[in-house]
């Protein structure tokens, strides 16, 4: 297992370099000029343009700029935002990542505590109206895009029903402000989790050991809880790692709508402002999150499923 982990971690290095090179190249040769953007209303001032380009080191050859950047990233320096000259990229990411991670965690809890029971109920009532209803509702819910779902929730829960006092901002996990964004963020992955649970439970229900457990006269609750669910959710647990990675990096639109100062919002702003240092930093860190999540999932699989072994 140790060797496996070392091998996986070593693969990270070329992967990171490839991601950095591709992103950097796209930013370098892509449309838009960060120097003009930084100049703002002075964009037509050629003298200032040349001076600023030199000051930012953007008038050097591509290879030189790229390797300097790579070296700085290795040392943990992601540079300074082009748009906001007072904002180091590392600081921006350090401030926003915990927010997105907390939001992702809240969504995860919803996904697990709502998605799994719903999947179970659907499977236990297979091909009945309950099964059809649950599947239809989740398909419908997860098909509605966030930018439509969010205003509907706002209007209904805040303005019409007054169930929630406020919708804006971020005050951490134990705040009612997290409810709506976490709920909306959970909607998409919820369907997947519910389906996986439903499918897993249906498969396990037909296994011999379940029939044996029933034949022994065990109560239905014990059969479902101890023998069915525990085995059915094994693939689900491994899937959750990727769901968490998606939730952290995927709350792009949502954070903007709810004014949550998270990682997704940072990506959107940097895209709008062609803020290449932030785009680079968020891409690299986003890729790292997904790779780490994959590694954790693969590693955990060996422990969760005794049939799997890494040599």
């Amino acid at each position, binding site marked *: 297992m140790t060797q496996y982990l070392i091998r996986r971690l070593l693969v990270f290095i070329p992967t990171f370099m490839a991601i950095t090179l591709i992103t950097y190249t796209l930013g370098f040769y892509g449309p838009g000029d960060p120097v003009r953007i930084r100049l703002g209303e002075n964009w037509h001032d050629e003298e200032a343009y040349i001076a600023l380009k030199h000051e930012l080191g953007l008038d050097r050859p591509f290879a030189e700029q790229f390797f300097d950047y790579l070296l700085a990233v290795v040392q943990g320096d992601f540079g300074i935002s082009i*748009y*906001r000259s007072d904002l180091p990229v590392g600081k921006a990411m350090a401030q926003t990542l915990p927010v997105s991670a907390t939001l992702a965690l809240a969504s995860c809890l919803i996904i697990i505590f709502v998605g799994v029971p719903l999947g179970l109920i659907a499977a236990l009532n297979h091909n009945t109206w309950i099964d059809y209803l649950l599947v239809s509702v989740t398909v419908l819910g997860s098909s509605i895009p966030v930018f439509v779902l969010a205003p509907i929730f706002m209007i209904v829960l805040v*303005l019409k029903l007054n169930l929630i006092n406020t919708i804006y901002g971020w005050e951490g996990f134990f705040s009612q402000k997290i409810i709506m964004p976490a709920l909306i963020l959970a909607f998409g992955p919820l369907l997947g989790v519910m389906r996986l649970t439903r499918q897993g439970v249906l498969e396990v229900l037909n296994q011999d050991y379940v029939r044996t457990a029933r034949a022994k006269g065990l109560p239905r609750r014990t059969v479902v809880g101890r023998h069915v669910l525990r085995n059915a959710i094994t693939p689900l647990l491994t899937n959750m790692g990727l769901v968490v990675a998606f939730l952290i990096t995927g709350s792009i639109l949502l954070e903007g709508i709810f004014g949550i100062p998270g990682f997704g919002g940072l990506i959107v702003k940097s895209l709008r402002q062609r803020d290449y240092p932030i785009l680079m930093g968020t891409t690299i860190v986003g890729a790292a999150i997904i790779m780490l999540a994959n590694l954790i999932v693969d590693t955990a699989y060996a422990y969760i499923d005794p049939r799997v072994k890494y040599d």
Partner: protein
Amino acid sequence: MRQTARISRRRFIQGAGGLGLAVLASACAPAVPAAEEESPAAQEAQEEPAARQVLTLAQAEPFKALDPHTMGTVVDLRYHEVNFNGLVRADVHYNIVAELAESWEVSDDLLNYTFHLREGLKWSDGSPFTAEDVVYSLNRNAAHEDPGTKRWLADIVGYESVRDGEAEAMEGVVAVDDFTVSITLDVVVDFLARLTFPAFWMVQRANVESGTPDDPWTQRAVSTGPFAIKEFSEGQRIVYESNPHFYEGPPELDEVVWLQLEDKQTQLALYENDEIDVVELDTVNVPRFREANDPELVEVDLIWWWYTWKKVLIPPMDDIKVRQAFNAAIDRTTLIATVLKGLYTEAHGIIPTTMPGHNPNVQDIPFDPDRAKQLISESSYGDVSNLPPVKFFQPGWSGIFGIAPRLIVALQQMWQDNLGIEIEIKVEEFEYESAETRAQMGINSTLARFPDLDAIVWEMAHSQSPRNAPDLNRWGYGNPEVDALLDQARYTGNRSEKQELYQQAEQLYITDAAIMPIMFNRLFVLVKPWVKNFEVGPTSTYPNTRNVIIEPH
């Protein structure tokens, strides 16, 4: 297999569960400074439940710099106006009024200004404000590494030496004594108007020099304006508290809270939920409030206008008849009434309606399709079939304003219908057109940041303006008669004479059809009825927060 594993499956799952709970517990701990304590609103409620007056505003676009000397966009100005100020300021009608300077004298040659500061001025930290602070602020901006706003200081004697690092202080800025500052210029400009711009606003040396990349001074700025920064929460809000040392005395408002919230629909929902007091409307929402005659709706014409430009040195725009024909083919009245739903004010000149010096009688080229065709036949090209292909440049940023793409498509259709000319639209990523595009015409919008006609008319129409530099593939406009009027206007001290000269230059510029003014932009804002004395400035800022009162509600 189980025997070879160091951790049993059961223990792993238990451990993972425990770890999950630990992560949950740590996640419940504060993630950002704002979450460390009870929300400010809740604290305020406990401390002084009813007495505190708080004005809450929301801003969709992110700011670029809180430092007034690196101001990038008009959004920044909205923040700067809350806590910074300068020697003079512009009121909402763009009149220049005294601020930190109580009075001033101007020399006969219009090159020297002597400002007398108010006595007893203090920074928000209680330390005294003197003429040396003025000298520091202006020199600091001249030497600033960011090009931001400093070009507006370029006419002060000694500016270039400081900009180039050859000198530490401009010869033209001198503290005569603690309360008197003398500023000398190289050339005559409308200097008082420029002084209203953040380039000339005051920053404190000790405060600026205490800043580090991880702890920027701007997020705890000491200032001389009506409010001072109390709390900065990245990406969430900036809270300003009333400055007890403000020269007029502390404002009635205890706090101004600027929420940073990019979604305008959410802003509107917050407004309807009484969480914010003022909201800027997206144009799609305006008809709903207009049709209802909502008393909370405030509309203000801005010093921000949209126009199409032409490169007058590149065929076919090198022929004035062709340029005039293109203008005559556009029915702006219909365009604004239908495509733009009557939300904007039709423009005929380049001096905006809210700017002192606006000429309501400026004569532009009226819509007349027959005349447009006739102009083409009178031109050196004789017929539309002889015109080279025309490329129209659309800057990428214009897509941010929902109106621009619709406007451009409508213009394209009108040229097609009324002149029989097909225009190719080239969209570029930014305002700066690439060499490949080489469009002969395009669209642009310009916002004047301070009440100086020179900064509007000279910038657009003078042959020496960077906008007209032909070697940089710019508009290339130049008319000796216009240049002469603009030069004369610049050196005229009398304000009404000055305005008249600019109006004459404007008229010639419009007749030359180098541009076609389309419309003046308008800002639509909803203001809660309990917010009194709230005013919207012509640059789309809220310059009078110092006078705002929140009535009990």
